[in-house]
């Protein structure tokens, strides 16, 4: 029992070790780069921490982290299944676009209007990702390739419809879908400064559902089994092909939520200025958070913090790109650190089990001798 607890403790230490190692390594590398540009890295970090901890910064960070988190969840569903859904970006954009179109065309009470918009987004996202799943199972097309391609196709589809006279209207220089009616505005959480999007609660709920389904349901077990070993999953009775399609659908449905905080909380329409690229950020955050719901939440907040404080660095005379460099370096460090820690953990455990068994064996040998 004692040994067991020790093993668990080691596991925990290893789980925390990887991100810490990655962030420390990333800090060292970025410091070197900042020094190379002739600036003081310590001061840069001070600026970031000071600015990041201001009240309005905090609200900004949470609001920005919400779509990041949803995007990371969407990517993580794929990762747990050993699928690399690079297409979250295209999925959430096309989902948000059609949700905005539907939402703009309807005027219903909020209690119906909002769910309709969200469900449309989830369905469109699921369809877009499902195409990649079907291509993989029927034609053997790698989901990496097909989801990238679908990003481009999605962008083209949106560009086609997002024109005056088609599904959008012109307002000054901007072209966007018709505004959602007031009933479709999601509630906000008031703070001393700016309000926080109410959608943050939906994101938290999504994280909870993600955890519960994966870790506590049969379906989640099957999904994780396929992710760990397709051959073992097949032998255990999982229909691997169906699971590929199902998990892509789920990943896409989750991706459909990514655009919702913006659509229902800020822009109320889908225009040419709708945020793009969150799908890729989600990949980085899923990696950083090890596909764990809490890990990814921290990762999303951290990423958002870097985004926020990066703007401030510019005022202090640092290159604003520095934050991009930090983020890039972190992703690299994370991938390397996790692999190192994972291998070390497996080896350490094997050694430990071997040692304990040998000790047991020696004990029983002695017992035999003395008997």
């Amino acid at each position, binding site marked *: 029992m004692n040994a067991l607890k020790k093993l668990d403790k080691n596991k925990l230490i290893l789980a925390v070790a990887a991100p810490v190692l990655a962030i420390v390594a990333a800090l060292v590398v970025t410091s070197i780069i900042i020094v190379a540009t002739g600036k003081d890295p310590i001061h840069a970090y001070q600026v970031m921490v000071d600015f990041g901890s201001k009240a309005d910064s905090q609200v900004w960070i949470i609001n920005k982290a919400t779509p990041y988190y949803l995007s990371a969840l969407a990517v993580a569903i794929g990762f747990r299944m050993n699928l690399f859904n690079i297409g979250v970006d295209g999925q959430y954009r096309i989902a948000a676009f059609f949700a905005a179109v539907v939402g703009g065309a309807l005027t219903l009470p909020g209690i119906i209007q909002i769910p309709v918009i969200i469900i449309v987004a989830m369905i469109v996202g699921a369809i877009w990702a499902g195409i990649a799943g079907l291509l993989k199972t029927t034609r053997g097309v790698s989901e990496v390739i097909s989801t990238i391609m679908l990003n481009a196709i999605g962008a083209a589809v949106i560009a086609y419809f997002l024109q005056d006279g088609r599904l959008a209207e012109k307002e000054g220089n901007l072209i966007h879908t018709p505004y959602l009616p007031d009933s479709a505005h999601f509630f906000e959480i008031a703070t001393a400064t700016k309000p926080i999007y109410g959608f943050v609660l939906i994101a938290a709920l999504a994280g909870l559902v993600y955890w519960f389904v994966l870790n506590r349901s049969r379906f989640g077990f099957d999904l994780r089994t396929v992710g760990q070993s397709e051959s073992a999953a097949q032998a255990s009775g999982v229909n691997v092909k169906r699971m590929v399609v199902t998990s892509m659908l789920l990943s896409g449905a989750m991706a459909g939520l990514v655009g919702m905080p913006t659509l229902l909380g800020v822009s109320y329409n889908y225009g040419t200025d709708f945020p793009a690229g969150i799908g890729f950020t989600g990949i980085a955050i899923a990696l950083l958070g090890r596909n764990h719901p809490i890990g990814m939440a921290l990762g999303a907040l951290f990423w958002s913090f870097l985004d926020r404080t990066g703007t401030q660095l510019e005022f202090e005379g640092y290159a604003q790109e520095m934050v991009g460099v930090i983020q890039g370096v972190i992703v690299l460090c994370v991938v390397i650190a996790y692999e190192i820690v994972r291998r070390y953990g497996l080896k350490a*455990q094997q050694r430990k089990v071997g040692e304990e068994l040998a000790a047991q064996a020696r004990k029983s040998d002695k017992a035999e001798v003395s008997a």
Partner: protein
Amino acid sequence: MANHDIHLTVRRGSVHALCGENGAGKSTLMKILYGMQKPDEGTITLDGEQVTLHTPGDAIARGIGMVHQHFMLADNLTVLENVVLGAEKLHGIGGKARAKIKEISDAYGLGVRPDALVEDLGVADRQRVEILKVLYRGARTLILDEPTAVLVPQEVDALFDNLRELKAEGLTVIFISHKLGEVLSVADDITVIRRGTTVGTAVPSETTPKQLAELMVGSELPSPETRESTVTDTPMLTVEDLKLSATDPDGVVRAVLDGISLTIHKGEVLGIAGVEGNGQAELVEAIMGMRDPDAGTVTLDGTDISHAPTRKRREDGIGYIPEDRHRHGLLLEAPLWENRILGHVTEKPNSKKGFLDPKAARADTERIVREYDVRTPGIEVTAASLSGGNQQKLIVGREMSHLPKLLIAAHPTRGVDVGAQAQIWDQIREARHEGLAVLLISADLDELIGLSDNLRVMFRGRLVADADPATITPEELGSAMTGAATGHLEHVEADDQEQDQEQEGGDKA
């Protein structure tokens, strides 16, 4: 600690057998000798000179060569290309290399054709290529890791002839095996390892297999023999005219199962003998629902399951001990209790109404660990950290825990130590007593003969022969496995005696 206090002395020009349970530390010892792992303490002395081996390269430079259990050959290259690969500097890659290969092949009677494609070679030929590869690099000491595991008896004899040739030329062979009969017939000296330490040496001429096995496990020798027949008249599994074709890498559609018909009754163990790759794996996969047959029916306990999904079949009572436990039986990086759920996620105690019940699954894993003697410090460790035998015990325990009607056991004791082997045999026998039907596929002919109530021989996707395990000998079975004999195999007394004499003759030489 995998090894401690190992003492091993191998005479030059001898065949030295190293035997021991799986997990006893044989592989670790071999890795140390081949420079793949560094010892914490102790010394290795080669020809009177103390050596330190850091990498396999060091070992090769000192004339130590290793033939791995799993062949390391590139299928799409010729024998010549495989042999020179990585050793191009020795004799080039052209005529000189070919001449050298010929020379080695002739000197030791290996009969290797340099221009044959490796993918066209059988298992025994591939093994000879591996041996040649090692000799080509100048090895004077050969380590063979379980070389007979994949061979039929006739091929084993041929291998032993090769080993005797090598010995006659002054080479040293270290031979690792579980199979005691083989060890006794080929080795000049035997060292036994148990629990990571050398527990004794034996002289083959003065030792019986029983004594040797007792030395290995430290207790009584198990035997696979089933005592009384428990076969009933109720068919449990009926396979009729099953056909399956598959596309091979060249794009040619080939029948891998052709007109397979068999019936297993309650309480019956049906053994399938055959050289690996003759359709046994496909037969298992068709019965498990992992491959959909082109024609024919599979009936389990009166229900047609020919095209049922795998999960349904498992729920209906098929237990499965897969041939390759790492690929099909375990999630290596998942803890033991999750591995206990694998394959039975919809059944009690693993889940309730679509949701996992980790508490009950953990508790039941504890029970399996206890009842099936899985040696592990706990159920939270990953499956990868257990030794092969203990992984297998966990799988057997898991499958038996769901009280299967039919157990498909593919090589259930492969790579498993003698102690665990006896346990697994006992469990199969016990369950058979209670009406379990078993489809047993094994390369270990003693196991097949000892455990089965009926035997069938599979060759090129067909069941070509049947035999009565009470009278048949491994040699007779072996000849049917190579396609030399078909129909009902009758045991022939005279033939048997001849074999015995040959065996003795071999021993004296």
